[in-house]
């Protein structure tokens, strides 16, 4: 099921209003919104045509409303890779030149992290509508600057936190808000891989340019590259922001190649109601893969596998076991189990109930991008916003805080301290409940 089907489905249940008020940023794909931009073109320029850039290009090629007018990368081979898809696009090696280009309305920033803030702000000031990959910025201060810059310019800014646009997540969060798993008492996130996280380097002087993720001069490592995606789960589910953050990181296994970002991290985010959200990442064991789980008093939602598990014991056991018990005891009585799908059992191996039909789930192994994870939808929303000039509601704040808490946790690890997000970094936050 894609987002349109999801909304259509909600419509049939008379929930369209409810769903859209819970997830107003999904509005850009409603019939009405699509009608609004029919026949119009978003003229887009991309800065940073590396692997994520190409991934977006492959999605953009399928969107009729998109015209890619300019591409920019200061590394020629990558620029040429992208140029193959758009022979008519203008090519730049300096992003400032692209920003001067009047034929560009919207800019996609897919450069390494340390450039996100600077390029985004320059682009906003040049009057461009901007999509920038996560994380939003490289430091706490810079994230705030970017946030304020968008506000001052009254511009459009989306950050590549695609889960916010993933129908699976929207449906799961809706169920949580409806109380389907009771009161939320825990949020667990983890992302495990077993590889050195390196990209192949054609020649040694390109090491830091290609493998920027591994150096603190360009990236904050696992927290900004991976955790960032997970850290909105708690606030999205509970409608509040963490109060304090602690964590520990180490260079545990991949520590001989000169990198200086942690390859193993654990962080705890405590919410005002006492709930803890955890994030853990290890890249020298991948057994558990990727997990994002919301734990409630009455059930659990696994956002990655898109399953709901109930904690409520089914008093009589499964239907077949009821029949077995009857025969064992030499009686016949009622058994109750038939219905439109099986009922959950008591054991921890109780089968889950799918949150929705026909979903594609991702394992988190790909470093480029997963399938059906909201990346197409977020791009569609961006294209829509480039045309209409309307800033989608709420998502920017959610992305802003995901970045702030990723950076704060990283800081906590380095300072070996329990930290609170300073008041000066607070921006208006409207819970999505």
């Amino acid at each position: 099921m894609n987002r349109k089907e999801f909304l259509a489905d909600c419509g049939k249940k008379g929930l369209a209003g409810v769903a859209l008020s819970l997830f107003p940023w999904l509005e850009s794909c409603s019939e009405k919104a699509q009608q609004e931009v029919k026949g119009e073109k978003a003229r887009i320029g991309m800065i940073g045509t590396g692997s994520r850039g190409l991934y977006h290009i492959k999605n953009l090629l399928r969107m009729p409303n998109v015209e890619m007018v300019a591409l920019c990368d200061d590394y020629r081979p990558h620029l040429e890779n992208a140029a193959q898809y758009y022979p008519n696009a203008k090519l730049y090696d300096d992003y400032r030149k692209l920003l001067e280009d009047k034929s560009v309305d919207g800019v996609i920033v897919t450069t390494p992290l340390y450039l996100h803030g600077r390029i985004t702000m320059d682009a906003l000031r040049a009057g461009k509508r901007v999509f920038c990959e996560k994380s939003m910025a490289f430091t706490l201060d810079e994230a705030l600057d970017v946030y304020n810059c968008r506000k001052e310019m009254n511009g459009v800014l989306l950050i590549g936190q695609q889960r916010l646009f993933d129908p699976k997540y929207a449906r799961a969060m809706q169920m949580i808000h409806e109380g389907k798993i009771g009161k939320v008492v825990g949020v667990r996130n983890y992302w495990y891989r077993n590889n050195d996280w390196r990209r192949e380097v054609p020649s040694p002087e390109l090491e830091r340019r290609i493998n920027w993720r591994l150096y603190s001069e360009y990236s904050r490592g696992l927290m900004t590259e991976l955790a960032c995606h997970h850290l909105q789960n708690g606030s999205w589910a509970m409608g509040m922001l963490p109060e304090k953050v602690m964590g520990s990181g180490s260079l545990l296994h991949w520590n001989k190649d000169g990198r200086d970002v942690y390859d193993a991290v654990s962080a705890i985010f405590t919410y005002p109601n006492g709930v803890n959200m955890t994030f853990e990442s290890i890249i020298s064991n991948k057994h558990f893969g990727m997990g994002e789980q919301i734990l409630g008093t009455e059930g659990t939602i696994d956002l990655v596998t898109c399953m709901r598990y109930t904690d409520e014991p089914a008093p009589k056991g499964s239907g077949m076991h009821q029949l077995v018990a009857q025969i064992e005891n030499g009686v016949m009585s009622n058994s109750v189990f038939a219905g439109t799908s099986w009922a959950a059992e008591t054991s921890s191996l109780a089968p889950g109930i799918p949150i929705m039909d026909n979903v594609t789930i991702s394992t988190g192994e790909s470093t480029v991008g997963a399938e059906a994870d909201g990346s197409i939808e977020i791009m569609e929303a961006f294209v829509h916003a480039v045309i209409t000039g309307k800033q989608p509601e709420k998502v920017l704040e959610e992305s802003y805080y995901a970045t702030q808490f990723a950076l704060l946790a990283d800081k906590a690890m380095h300072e070996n301290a329990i930290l609170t997000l300073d008041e000066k970094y607070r921006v208006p936050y409207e819970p999505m409940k």
Partner: protein
Amino acid sequence: MAEITFSQKNPAYPLMCASFRAMHTKVELLAVGVDDEKGRDLMQRAEAEVRRLERLLSCHDDASPLSALNSLAWEQSVEAEDELYMVLELCETFRRATYGYFDVTAMCSETDGVMSLAGGYSLDAKHHSVRFCRKGVKIDLGGFAKGYALDCIKRMSQQEGITQGVINFGNSSIAALGHHPYGEWWPIGIEHRMVKSALAQEVRLADSAMSISGRSEAGEYHIIDPHTGSRVAGEELILIEGRSALVCEVLSTALYAAPRAKRADIMSQYDGYRASEIVCRRDGTTECRVVGATVVEK
């Protein structure tokens, strides 16, 4: 991998209860009067059979013959292997005998009205080949496979000499062999949609089967009206009881998709099958109407 338990707690009726996951659900088998060896053997064969059918009939598995057919049959006639061909013949027969409301190509129907007249594919009996009638047709046997597999497993169990047992496909399609050792039927309660573990309706199965269609437990409306291509948003459950699990499965889907007024017409063509509309109210009460009969309150 199947989970199997044996019980001899009641020496008069030793039994086996086993389960495995297949076809996106859980398959359970209860067999009375079997010993360890025979039970395991039966279970292994049943599981292998269901997996074989899953591979044959799935449209989600890129390597399945059905996927191949789905991707090619608009461009050209595609020869289908015997069993798949027979399945498609059966589906077409059911489509015609349900006023088009059972339609394995419903997922891709266009709303141009053409659907109500013809199915999505045509069959060539001489060459055992299939060809799609319109672009974009896709065959999804999701509303057929469980019932078909259930009948296969039932036949297999009977051949093994099992005379008493229950086979359950995800609680929505159930077939019974013989009857409960302590009664004349297997009592199968349908759970109330609004009150967990409460009984909405009791079904008595004796050498017969049942199937239920309705909004899924996750809240999805997953049945498509082939005439409009949109999801049917009915709140009632449709229960079908009768001899063949396959027919029950097909009819429960067709009746859920069909408007009330058409349901009795459809059922009049199926001797020995009974359909009920079950409405579970928020206050825990239930209304059950036998299609073609008057209302019974409970």
